[in-house]
């Protein structure tokens, strides 16, 4: 018998043996009572028997309880008033609950059971962030950004100041699976990584897995970032928006049919271009004026949902975002645009109180296009990746000890890599190039969340993944195991192991995100990347000076194989033989993370610390090697990383947020030597050509920065006079880099020249000295944003 068959059979036998009829099931959906939004990860807890569960990502819960006994069942969610219901089950019962929102996030007393659920859960290496937290914390130029805030959590260092690139537990920025309403987002960046594509007003929830990946996720090695969009208020029409110094945004939502269907539309747009156009207009008569190119980006999120009955719910959502860069004059017409499109059709069906399914069809498209027209000639270059995905997931509350989850997915990928079309209008000159590929990625998984004893919970699962492309087929078994041992009511130990396979790869030669980075499939030469990660740790809930704190401490070790890098000087842009530039190697990363969190009271926040070490090496490819195969540290090998985050409610009018971050400097590849280069006739003599030795041997100075935020609520008097007044507004003042620290964005070596007289009496420029220069990105940077909602 094949191991996979044995695995499934054992699971079925076990599940059948455990099934009992002396219990009934309470199930339903938890929602925000004011808006009807489903609540993800809300807690359902029965104190008398110490059992509980959480809602899944669709707000659904299902818990089996002994029959004909009265129980107090508590429903809770951070930021909402708890609700308690008395239940006495004589049959399966469906109970949808709408929780009342608390007046303020900080005012709500989060009951110990939400911590308790975290202590009980087998999930580890998970970070979650709410949009309320994001809005309370400082943001660059007033642009709240959920991806930047998640970087404040331990184990998720950013790619450097100002960027949204994520390097989770030693993984590369292409090793993050980023899904928006279950559709993959291939480039989560605007403006070369300074802002993310996620409009905070439209986002409901973000969850990031650093390890211990549940089997339903696959396709990337290092993290899963699962972003859910809001569904839209199905109780009343409402809106929110803001005016900032670089962009404005507006969100409208409301019921299509009250309590049954709703919509949400959310958009934002920057207005750099409106400013630069005015500057260009003012300078158009200035001699030798060089007009500033146009640049702007915009996002549009939409979603509608329909409750089709007691058991069915249909959701349709979409995202469209573009960055536009352009430059026009009478002889020259240049355009560069890039962006994502995603759409999701999702159907939730509840077969019975114990079985819930989610079926989705998603579409993802990321592309960039560069076009240029010069009198008589044109140039067009574009690349894209496009996916169509079908997947179905089942959640089965098998009994009070076992919750099964199983499903399958299939994704059709289409890749266009560097499609070039250029030439003269008369056809005499013609250039064309580029490659097109397609591939199909498969996934099949099963997992069981098994309560082995009152103290021990185990989540075991297996994912079978595969990829086919042009006659080449790869597959891999990906075992996933996570266990939680509750030592005491306030202390638990956790461990996990996860194997991941990655079948599509980002071709990026830069440490920073570029829109021209392209995705590339596994082929005969390019094998799938793999990783194995083991994590162990513990969580503890304790009181210090009367304050309840939650401590999490984890250690991880990750092995990476079939890693992709590039030979020195690789040409990755418009190259028909891209694979020849690749080198393949392996790597490892290890480290520890500690986080101390306070979620209650007027002052909330966390302190996080990460220690990590990352190495890559053994890189060889068709055209050569990297450092003769020796191991080296990637530029994001950051040894220490500290973040301190605080949110404080001063009074009804004022709320403050502050973050302080410290990190060992990133590594940089600086030249160690120099030589002169005479070159051939007709070319200039180069007095100094840098000579680079081993990669990334220089560490930039340590990075630290304090950011502050103050929210001033407006119109409180009017609100007091008229409590039913819906219009609320605030002014948000943020100061980035409050003590004006000049952090290194990069360092370069500058050569100074001076005029000297040669033997013939001519003045020539000769080098006289070298200085190292550091370039910083942000000085102290204040911003003001006006926000409103109604």
């Amino acid at each position, binding site marked *: 018998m094949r191991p996979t068959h044995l695995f499934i059979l054992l699971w079925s036998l076990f599940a059948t043996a455990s099934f009992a009829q002396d219990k009934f099931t309470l199930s339903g959906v938890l929602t925000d009572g004011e808006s009807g939004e489903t609540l993800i990860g809300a807690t359902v807890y029965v104190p008398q028997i110490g059992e509980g569960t959480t809602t899944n990502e669709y707000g659904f819960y299902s818990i089996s309880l002994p029959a004909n006994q009265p129980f107090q069942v508590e429903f809770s969610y951070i930021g909402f008033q708890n609700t308690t219901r008395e239940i006495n089950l004589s049959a399966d019962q469906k109970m949808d609950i709408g929780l009342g929102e608390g007046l303020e996030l900080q005012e709500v007393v989060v009951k110990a059971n939400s911590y308790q659920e975290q202590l009980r859960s087998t999930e580890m290496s998970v970070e979650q962030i709410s949009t309320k937290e994001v809005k309370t914390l400082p943001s660059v130029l007033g642009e709240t950004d959920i991806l930047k805030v998640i970087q404040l959590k331990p184990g998720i260092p950013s790619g450097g100041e100002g960027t949204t690139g994520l390097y989770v537990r030693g993984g590369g920025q292409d090793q993050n699976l980023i899904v928006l309403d279950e559709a993959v987002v291939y480039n989560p960046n605007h403006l070369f990584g300074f802002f993310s594509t996620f409009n905070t007003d439209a986002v409901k929830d973000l969850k990031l897995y650093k390890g211990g990946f549940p089997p339903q996720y696959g396709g990337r090695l290092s993290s899963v970032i699962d972003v859910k969009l809001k569904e839209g208020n199905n109780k009343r029409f409402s809106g929110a928006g803001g005016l900032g110094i670089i962009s404005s945004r507006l969100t409208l939502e409301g019921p299509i049919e009250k309590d049954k269907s709703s919509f949400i539309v959310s958009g934002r747009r920057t207005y750099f271009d409106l400013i630069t156009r005015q500057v260009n207009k003012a300078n158009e008569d200035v001699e030798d004026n060089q007009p500033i190119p146009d640049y702007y980006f915009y996002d549009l999120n939409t979603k509608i949902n329909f409750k089709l009955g007691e058991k069915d719910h249909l959701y349709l959502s979409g995202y469209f975002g573009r960055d536009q860069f352009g430059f026009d004059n009478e002889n020259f017409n240049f355009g560069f645009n890039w962006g994502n499109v995603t759409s999701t059709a999702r159907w939730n069906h509840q077969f019975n109180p114990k079985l819930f399914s989610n079926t989705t069809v998603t579409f993802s498209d990321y592309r960039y296009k560069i076009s240029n027209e010069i009198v008589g000639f044109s140039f067009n270059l574009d690349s894209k990746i496009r996916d169509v995905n079908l997947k179905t997931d089942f959640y089965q509350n098998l009994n009070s000890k076992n919750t099964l989850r199983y499903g399958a997915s299939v994704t059709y990928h289409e890749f266009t890599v560097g499609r070039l079309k250029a030439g003269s209008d008369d056809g005499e000159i013609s250039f064309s190039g580029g490659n097109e590929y397609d591939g199909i990625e498969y996934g099949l998984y099963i997992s069981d969340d098994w309560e082995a004893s009152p103290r021990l919970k185990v989540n075991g699962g297996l994912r079978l993944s595969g990829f086919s492309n042009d006659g080449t087929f790869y597959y891999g078994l990906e075992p996933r195991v996570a266990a939680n041992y509750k030592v005491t009511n306030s202390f638990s130990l956790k461990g996990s192991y996860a194997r991941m396979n990655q079948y599509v790869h980002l071709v990026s030669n830069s*440490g920073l995100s570029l829109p021209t980075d392209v995705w590339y499939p596994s082929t005969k030469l390019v094998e799938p990347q793999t990783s194995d990660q083991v994590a162990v740790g513990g969580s503890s809930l304790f009181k210090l000076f009367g304050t309840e704190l939650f401590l999490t401490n984890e250690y991880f070790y990750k092995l990476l194989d079939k890693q992709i890098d590039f030979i020195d000087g690789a040409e990755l842009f418009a190259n028909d033989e891209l694979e020849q530039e690749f080198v393949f190697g392996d790597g490892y990363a290890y480290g520890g993370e500690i986080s101390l969190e306070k979620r209650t009271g007027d002052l909330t926040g966390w302190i996080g610390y990460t220690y990590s070490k990352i190495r890559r090496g053994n890189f060889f490819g068709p055209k050569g090697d990297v450092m003769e195969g020796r191991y080296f540290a990637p530029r994001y090998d950051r040894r220490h990383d500290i973040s301190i985050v605080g949110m404080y409610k001063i009074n009804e009018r004022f709320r403050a947020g502050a973050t302080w971050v410290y990190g060992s400097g990133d590594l940089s590849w600086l030249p160690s030597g120099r030589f002169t280069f005479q070159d051939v006739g007709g070319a200039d003599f180069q007095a100094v050509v*840098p000579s680079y030795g081993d990669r990334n041997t220089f560490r930039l100075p340590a990075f630290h920065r304090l950011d502050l935020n103050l929210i001033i609520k407006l119109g409180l008097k009017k609100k007091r006079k008229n409590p039913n007044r819906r219009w609320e507004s605030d002014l948000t003042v943020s100061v980035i880099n409050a003590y004006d620290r000049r952090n290194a964005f990069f360092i370069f070596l500058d050569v100074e020249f001076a005029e000297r007289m040669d033997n013939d009496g001519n003045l020539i420029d000769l*080098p006289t000295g*070298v200085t*190292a220069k550091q*370039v910083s990105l942000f000085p102290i940077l204040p911003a003001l944003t006006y926000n409103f909602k109604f």
Partner: protein
Amino acid sequence: MKFQYIFPILFLISILAACNLTNDVEIDLPDYDRQPVLECYLEPGQPYQLLLTRSFGFFAPFDTSDGQFLENVLEQGATVVIKHDGKSIPLNEGLFFNPFSFKVFNYGTTEIVPEDFDNEFELEITLADGGTITSKTTIPVRVPIDSVVLEFESDAATDTLARALTYFTDPDPSVENRFRRQFHWNSLVDSSAQQDFLSTDQFADNGRIVFGTGFDYPVGDTIWNTVFNMNRDYADFYESVIISIQSNGNPFGQPASIDSNLDGTADALGIFTGLSYSREMTIIEK
């Protein structure tokens, strides 16, 4: 400059220019062992000549006092021999100025490089410290410029600025060839090239390739168009030099080690290559 870096750099420059966020810092670089550096371009019709210098640690002081600069840079006391077609050509140490290329060499001879596109040239150098440098190369065939076409935006008499379109034909569409394009305005030696970049025939559909300029060149001025047909080794070396220069100071760039085609015990950097180019001088007329 690699094309994809242009846009982020434009954006960065505008931000950084506004904020003046550059300052001097003191850093320690890893230890560096000096290496010999060789440039030898075998051009048919020109004498055998090469430049042999030595690299420095990046922070090593520059001695620019009169006469000292060259002495500090040049590698002295080497024995240099180039072998071709069964014949050994020794190159003597000295200072040689080439009046055609306006370049200076420290090893040379009066013997002329033959127009031989078939047979290999071999280099053997023994340095004063006993280290050796060896290499082999050939001279690629010359690729003729088919035509240089001048165009004006309009026929109006007031329109006196032309652009130049330089056409040539891919010598062998079955393999990838690398070219270097230079464009000079008014002088070949007293001003920097207006254009100087690498190109390839990888994407040419019908074997015809064109390089163009903007409508920038006045009637009466002189322009020079040059197309080099490059050996693969030379193209790789030149590209790695350009990447190294451009990566210093470019946060989006990925540096590269110098891609030399030199062997031997001396761990030398540099290039030993045949040089082949076509050059057309054109006076702008309407």
